[in-house]
């Protein structure tokens, strides 16, 4: 630990204060009321009646949602676990994947289009090497609304197989553009430290550091421009240099408070590897904690206007977490979702797999409830984050059979009054690009044509005020 202390002292000491980084240009933008959006994407589908299986997800009655009405469903419908937010909820059934015939592993295919409404590339290098062919909604919102060029806050919980070949797809859902996934942070500590970045409790020192950074940035920009001036670079090199140049920002150090010290400590303790040299945030035993801490970070980032959009992916290409139900460690969630002891269509049946799957979806829904509660509790003069934004819970596929119909959409929050909440809506089989256009519009990025250009335009106007 000697090294670390020296590393710290090199910058002058140890008092903890946690300012957020703000761009100088941000001050000009205070005019419009920001809208905050978060997308939680889960894996392996939900248990719903798309043929033979029982209905254990959607509310039992369409139309208006009331706390009492939802509470009556609580034993059997996963969505009912959020009954306390009934008046702010918008549950939408009948939205289907825009691209229904997979050209890759169905989970990857679902991830690819989930937030992009584009088909994935065909797998040329293994069955899950497919990548989405367009920008995702969170990136679009960040590009248009985030202050200072920051990308969407992109988080991931669960095993992360970055670097994999074949089936090792990490399950990217957030994309800058065709074949350009946004790399998610798996460790809450990394994500948090990137937000708080540099802390200086003294304005003079903060100014000295900012001045030094400005000089270094000028130097880096100058070198980048010299490279850009070459005429013999490929288009991709050009794009790369442009992106690098626009990422070089002169930041000032704004002051804000941080998360509670015990929360920060939890994050720090979860970073790195355990005694068995396994990445701690990948472990099943730490999953619930990682999800909760990521949600804390999302609310924190919104509260400080560090980002106006976030994505949390739970699980990688599929979710192989072994959940513990009633004190018993279950087979992998992915196997349960397929009802058999294998990662595909073959294997011995898992007893009570349908019920187990439904129980896991309830666990995931309760975790989502934590985020929603947190957003409800985070207020400013303009209202809570649920007044000023919304959270979406969805899944890469509709059920354990990779069905493309009835993707789950549980939306909570009124988005500065743009969403008509308090309802369970039957959309009647519309492709999900229209849902994404609707959600963009709710996030103050009005559009009716998000996603692949081959798709029919439109929004689900009934959801919008």
């Amino acid at each position, binding site marked *: 630990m000697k090294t670390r202390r020296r590393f710290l002292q090199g910058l002058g000491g140890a008092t903890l204060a946690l300012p957020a980084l703000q761009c100088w240009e941000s001050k000009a933008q205070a005019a419009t009321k920001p809208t905050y959006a978060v997308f939680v994407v889960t894996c392996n589908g939900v248990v719903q009646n798309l043929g033979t299986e029982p209905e254990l997800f959607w509310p039992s009655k369409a139309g208006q949602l009331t706390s009492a009405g939802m509470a009556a469903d609580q034993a059997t419908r996963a969505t009912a676990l959020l009954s306390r937010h009934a008046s702010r909820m918008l549950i939408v059934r009948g939205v289907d994947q825009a691209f229904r015939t997979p050209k890759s592993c169905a989970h990857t295919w679902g991830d690819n289009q989930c937030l992009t409404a584009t088909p994935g590339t065909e797998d040329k290098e293994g069955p899950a090497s497919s990548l989405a062919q367009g920008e995702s909604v969170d990136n679009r919102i960040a590009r248009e609304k985030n202050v200072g060029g920051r990308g969407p806050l992109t988080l991931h919980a669960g095993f992360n197989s970055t670097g994999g070949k074949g*089936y090792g797809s990490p399950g990217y859902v957030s994309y800058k553009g065709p074949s350009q996934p946004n790399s998610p942070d798996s460790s809450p500590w990394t994500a948090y430290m990137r937000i708080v970045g540099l802390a200086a409790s003294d304005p003079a020192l903060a100014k000295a550091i900012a001045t030094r950074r400005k000089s270094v940035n000028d130097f880096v920009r100058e070198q980048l421009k010299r490279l850009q001036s070459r005429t013999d670079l490929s288009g991709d090199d050009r794009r790369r240099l442009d992106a690098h140049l626009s990422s070089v920002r002169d930041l000032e150090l704004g002051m804000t408070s941080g998360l509670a010290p015990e929360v920060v400590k939890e994050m720090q303790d979860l970073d790195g590897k355990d005694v068995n040299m396994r990445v701690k945030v990948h472990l099943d035993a730490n999953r619930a904690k990682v999800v909760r801490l990521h949600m804390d970070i999302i609310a924190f980032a919104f509260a400080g206007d560090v980002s106006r959009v976030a994505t949390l992916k739970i699980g990688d290409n599929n979710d192989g977490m072994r959940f513990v139900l009633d004190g018993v460690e279950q087979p992998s969630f992915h196997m349960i979702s397929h009802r058999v002891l294998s990662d*595909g269509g073959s294997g011995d049946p898992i007893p009570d797999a349908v019920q187990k799957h439904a129980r896991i979806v309830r666990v995931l829904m309760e975790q989502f409830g934590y985020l929603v509660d947190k957003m409800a509790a985070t207020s400013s003069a303009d209202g809570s984050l649920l007044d000023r934004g919304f959270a979406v819970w969805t899944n890469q596929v509709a059920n354990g059979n990779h069905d493309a119909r009835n993707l789950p959409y549980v939306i909570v929050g009124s988005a500065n009054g743009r969403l008509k909440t308090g309802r369970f809506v039957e959309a009647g089989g519309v492709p999900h690009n229209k849902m994404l256009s609707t959600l963009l519009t709710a996030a103050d990025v009005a559009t009716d044509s998000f996603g692949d250009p081959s798709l029919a335009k439109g929004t689900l106007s009934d959801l919008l005020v």
Partner: protein
Amino acid sequence: MLNQVFRTLSVLFALTSFDACIGRVGGEVEGGDNGGDDDRVQGGVGGRSGGTGGKAGAGGTHVTTPSTIASASRLPRLTHFQYRNAVRDLLRLPTLPTAAISLQADAVLGFDNNNRGKALDVSFELRADYERFAEGMASYVVNDKAALSRLIPQGAPSDLESKARSVITSLATRAYRRPVSTAEVDELWRLFQAGGTAFNGRDPFAAGMEILIGALLQSPLFLYRPELGEGSNEAAFVLTQNELATRLAFALTDSMPDDQLLAAAQQGKLKSSAEIRAEAQRMLTTPAARESAQHFHEQLFRITSFEKVSKDSKVFPSFSASAVPSLKEEARLFLDDVVATDQNPSAILLSSTSFVDKTLAGLYGLATPPAEGFAKTELNAKERGGLLTQIGFLAANAGAIDPDPIHRGVFISEVLLCKTLPPPAMNVPPVPASGRTTNRQRVEAHTGKGTCGATCHATLINPLGYAFEGYDAIGRFRTKDNGVSVDSSGSYSELTEGEANFQNALDLTQNLSQSRDFHACYVGNWMAYLWSRTQRDEDQEALSAIVDSSLEGASVKELLLTLVTHPSFARFVP
């Protein structure tokens, strides 16, 4: 005055407890990938196993180019592994400090130097990480007298400007991996002075060094490997001597050129293939080259997936997660040894010489475990031979209770033979309980001949996996499964040499080790990694010749030397 402020007031840089990736493979790019839960299996009910169009003929495998790598970039960005190594070497540190922050993971598929997904960009987040990393390292070095003095050339003058210019010239030459112009030195001298101006009151040399180091570690000329040739605009060209040295160093050691290589480049002594070979040969004896090969193997063989191993504690009370580091270390030491002792790639599939600690000795059932650490050990050659019969692979490709022939088979097909399987079927209805006795019978009942999985599983996947039924879910050798004799025989007809019939795993690996498919796959992966670009049609002739020599018994090292001395290695081809 500010000096006092500096002492009394405080700054906190983002520090992480990222202790694990100093000087070791791993780090923020989590090497391999999952070998665990996924959709490898498919029953093929009217499904996709038949393949469509050019994909995978009637249920056949699709042979892939091992890895597609940034093909036309003149500015490949360093991977995080390379960046950390290069920072360590540029600053002449034995290792990076443990508190050096982790960088935002790249969204790569395949090898970490693979840019197919355009992953190797500098995003807003990564740029911010570089900044904090660079500032942290600069501060670390400036506050360590010994470290700082290592960066000052011997006989440097003592007045501030001359001393600064001397350090700048030496450091920038190494950071940019080429001679620097007077204008570039002037530019850095101005920056050096700006450090003292920003921190008025600090020692101007220390303040200057801090900003200088921080800037060089963020310089595009350090972060990227510019391959621009001699200022020609021709589409294809021969790299400059310095660019070639850089390409060679990052290929073989995943780091910047060392002093000797840089000197050779500056003297124009990397022209003939004999000259390049001599330098490469020297580099291959360095620890950095060994780590680089380990980094390659860890990714190729998905060693990181061992971290996911999780077994039923009632069935396997002797196995716990504490075995995971041993499993990974065995594979690492084994593969390292194959390279270090000049063996042919076939040793990866055949050698029963491995590395065992107490934990593994227990799992292998060895009578005399080593007193401490790992010992080079001869495993029972009748039961074990090669990576595929080591506990790590076997346990990682098994369920909590039973072995998983399907994952084992898919791994061999994809990773060792580079034969990609068609995507899994959709909407496969669950199969009723079988009531069969052995693991093989159960799998067979669902996916074997006469079932809906016949096209894919019965021929392309299962036979490869059944060969390993002689090892249980924690990799122990067994002759009985559920009281019935294990059947690990089978035949596999996808090899270039024709049908391979085998009785057990050792039989199968013997067949694979002599197959052109295995050698082409392994060498092709190295080619992708070392050449850092997509294979092209015109490369096939070169590749084919190298595969021939691999089949004839060339050592891994010899293959690497052949790959980096091939004329194509030194050329930029868009």
